[in-house]
């Protein structure tokens, strides 16, 4: 993970329009952003990530804060764009019958194949995406994006206490997920 000092420098450069600074920001934050969006909007993650960066670019000159605040700010933009995406998806007639949401649909088709393969990031995100939305978001932002409780709470518009509870419940549920326990047993033997 990129240190906050490097990120602060990149942030400053990007805010001044420097493309190398932006590239450094993007390299540091695109992977966790993409993973968060995979959990939240599934197959639309790449597009929503692009929209997020575009909006961030537009508003960058007005952003006034350090790397921690920037992380939270970026993920907050991503969350809003993800909500828009879900609304768009819900409006599309062919998806009207699908109330489960895109995350699950993204997860479902190759579930068996993925499990048969091995432990991968895609596998982990797919399992996390099966959690109730508030738990899935809390776990992803805390574990994958590495946001602290206060920042996660700001991103989700919740109180820190709710974030901690949602994270704990999410982890509990993940711990008892059949694929997760199976993997634990399998790897315990090796």
């Amino acid at each position, binding site marked *: 993970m990129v240190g906050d000092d490097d990120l602060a420098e990149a942030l400053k450069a990007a805010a001044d329009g420097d493309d190398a600074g932006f590239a450094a920001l993007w390299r540091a934050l695109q992977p966790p952003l993409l993973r968060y969006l995979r959990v939240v909007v599934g197959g639309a993650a790449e597009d*929503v990530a692009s929209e997020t*960066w*575009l909006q961030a670019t537009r508003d960058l000159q007005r952003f006034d804060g350090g790397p921690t605040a920037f992380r939270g700010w970026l993920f907050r933009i991503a969350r809003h764009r993800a909500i828009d995406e879900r609304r768009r998806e819900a409006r599309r007639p062919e998806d009207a019958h699908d109330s489960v949401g895109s995350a699950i649909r993204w997860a479902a088709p190759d579930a068996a194949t993925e499990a048969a393969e091995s432990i991968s990031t895609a596998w982990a995100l797919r399992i996390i995406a099966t959690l109730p939305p508030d738990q899935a978001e809390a776990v992803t932002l805390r574990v994958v994006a590495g946001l602290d409780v206060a920042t996660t709470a700001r991103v989700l518009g919740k109180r820190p206490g709710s974030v901690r509870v949602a994270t704990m419940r999410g982890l509990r549920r993940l711990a008892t997920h059949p694929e997760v326990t199976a993997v634990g047993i399998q790897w315990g033997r090796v």
Partner: protein
Amino acid sequence: MRPFDALRNAIRARRIRRIDRAEADRLVSGNPPGPEHRGLGLLLDAAAAPPAVEELAGERAAVARFVAAYGDAASIPSAPRRARTSRSARMAVKVAAGVAVLAVGGTAVAAETGNLPAGVRQLFAALGVPAPDGGTITPDPSVPGHGLTLRRDDAERFRA
């Protein structure tokens, strides 16, 4: 029978033991769980694994979009939303690019494939679509307007 009882109790204790807040905090900060939650530990490690190559594959395109969006083009109201980069939108861009190529450079330029004029590249950049040759998009300030630049006051109004 006592060893058996002990074993059964141990198994039961493992089953019952749930993750509490303190344990959740520990796990979130990357500490490995006990053996009863080995699977969860593996899952969390995989979810937070170092970036894969494909996750960083879009860097050039992303930087090109930044360059295009940062300057004057930053305030074009029709941002390249997902809906706008649908197949029909991309086709429209291709058609527009073809027209522009012909209009700007005539057949000589059009024949020189893979080397689009800067104006056309800027058009691609402004629309948030990578140029067909996959090259880096660098807006050329020496090229006067590409038909998409808004006046400052328009831009400000959009931002407000």
